[in-house]
């Protein structure tokens, strides 16, 4: 009982700032304090009318899209490899994946900046995508590894024994089995990239992603416009989580259905 109260107080602490932000995004007055002066959508109208913000959003969506696709291709191959590798290979993959996760973004950011400078690569959208993949790939491999632990490689062997080629086996056995995990992982990579700020601030050059735009706004003033942007960003995260949950849910249902058929 006491534990329950403690847990819910901690959750209240986690959620309270987000609730406040959402609440003030509808505030009719620019003041960020109570008493509440009534509801209005004026900040949302401002957000929609802000061209710079729109182009930052498009930039972020583009970067996150490319990051998700590249990370997915590299990560899916590595995760399939995980099922086939011996001890040494697994250790190598593990070290390469866990080290960047355990380092602050600052370290990754400055080392990539130094690499691009040394290779005389102009900082651009491309360098942002390259850097985001470095951050998202380890997370994706770790997440996929946990889920692929349930994958039964003997299904692939059975398919090969029945005469299917390697490509047929992949397309008709492996891929359908791992597809939900792949989609969930791609969403994760997208979310990581969409919110990334620290590393981006080093490798973006003159490009502006959404977090970088929000940062420049935050530094200049406290404007209620940020509340509206934040609420939209929050809505976006909730939507992403909902999609991930839906995929997990449908997958469980199809798994149950599959069991009853057999």
């Amino acid at each position, binding site marked *: 009982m006491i534990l*329950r109260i403690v*847990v819910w107080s*901690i*959750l209240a602490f*986690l*959620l309270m*700032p*987000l609730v*406040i*932000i959402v609440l*003030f995004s509808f505030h009719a007055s620019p*003041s*960020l*304090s*109570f008493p509440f002066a009534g509801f209005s959508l004026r900040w949302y109208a401002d957000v929609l009318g802000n061209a710079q913000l729109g182009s930052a959003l498009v930039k972020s969506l583009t970067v996150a899209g490319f990051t998700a696709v590249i990370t997915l*291709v*590299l*990560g899916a*191959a*590595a995760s*399939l*490899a995980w099922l*086939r590798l*011996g001890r040494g*290979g697994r250790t190598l*993959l593990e070290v*390469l*994946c866990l080290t*960047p996760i*355990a380092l*602050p*973004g*600052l*370290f*990754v950011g*400055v*080392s*990539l*900046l*130094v*690499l691009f*400078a040394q290779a005389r690569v102009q900082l651009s959208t491309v360098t942002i995508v390259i*850097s985001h*993949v*470095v951050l998202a*790939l*380890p997370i994706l491999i770790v997440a996929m590894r946990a889920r692929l632990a349930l994958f039964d490689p003997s299904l692939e062997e059975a398919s090969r024994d029945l005469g299917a080629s*390697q490509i047929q086996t992949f397309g008709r056995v492996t891929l359908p089995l791992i597809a939900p995990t792949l989609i969930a992982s791609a969403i994760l990579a997208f979310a990581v990239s969409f*919110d990334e700020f620290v590393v981006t601030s*080093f490798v973006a050059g003159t490009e502006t992603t959404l977090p970088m735009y*929000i940062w420049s706004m*935050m530094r200049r003033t*406290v404007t209620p416009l*940020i509340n509206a942007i*934040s609420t939209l*960003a*929050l809505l976006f*995260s909730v939507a*992403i*989580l909902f999609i991930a949950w839906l995929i997990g849910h449908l997958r469980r249902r199809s798994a149950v259905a599959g069991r009853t058929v057999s």
Partner: protein
Amino acid sequence: MKAPRSSMGSLLAAPAVLYMVVFFVVPSLILFVYSFWTAASYKIVPDFVFSNYLNSLMSPLFWTVTINAILIGLVTASITLVLAIPVGYYLVYVSRSQVILYLILITWFSSYLVRIYAWRTLLGTSGVLNTILLQAGIVDSPVGVFLFSRFAVAITLIHIYLPFCILLVVSSLSEIKKDLVDAARDLGASPLGAFFRVIAPNAANGLVGAFMLTFVMVAGDYVTPQMLGGSSGQTTGLLIADQFRKTGNWPLGAAQAFLMFLVSTAIYFAVMGLGRATGLIVKRRPAKKAGA
């Protein structure tokens, strides 16, 4: 022609491994090499000197900000872990509540900058907390110390990294069977007693891992102290970032990044040593038969 499983595996792993080598290992090595170079009037010259390290170690500013970062890191990571454990315990042993799990994930996935901004809104002089205190008559004038203080930095960092820490705690507690807890309870241990005598020693490695990961993230986070810490917001991270963005002395920044890495490693061993000395961390022994 059937390729052996392991060679097929290597082929599939190759692109990802290559990518991480080129864009993570190589840059880290270049950064290390840079730390021995010199910067003269905005030009970086290849060299082999230890002056970047020595100058940093001799500089009072470096130590002030590093101690600040370590203090913020230790205090914040400790509180974060203490808060994460009950939630993790509840999720693993009491109820696998999907609602709680998703509420945690929502906070985790909500934007980093937005959360910093939210706390600035909450703690500001005309912010929510002050308004409530004023209206309730608890204080007569707005409390200025909420914002731009170590308190503001700590509470925001806890908020940002708590969901992450909870997930780490959940994964380390999941390895310990509920039977052990039940057995301890049957033998008369209180809930707290069962936690400290049964779960904590068994999960010690995972919990220390959660603490250290949180510590590294928090101590390396320079954005939050910069936005909310005021004059107490100078940390090593900010110092390093400024060498790369403003001052242009990249070799010095590189050396300081590696010094920060060394300090974190030293703290890891200190925490492990302290844990062993106080008996909180028990070395995992291979499973033995009863009586051994």
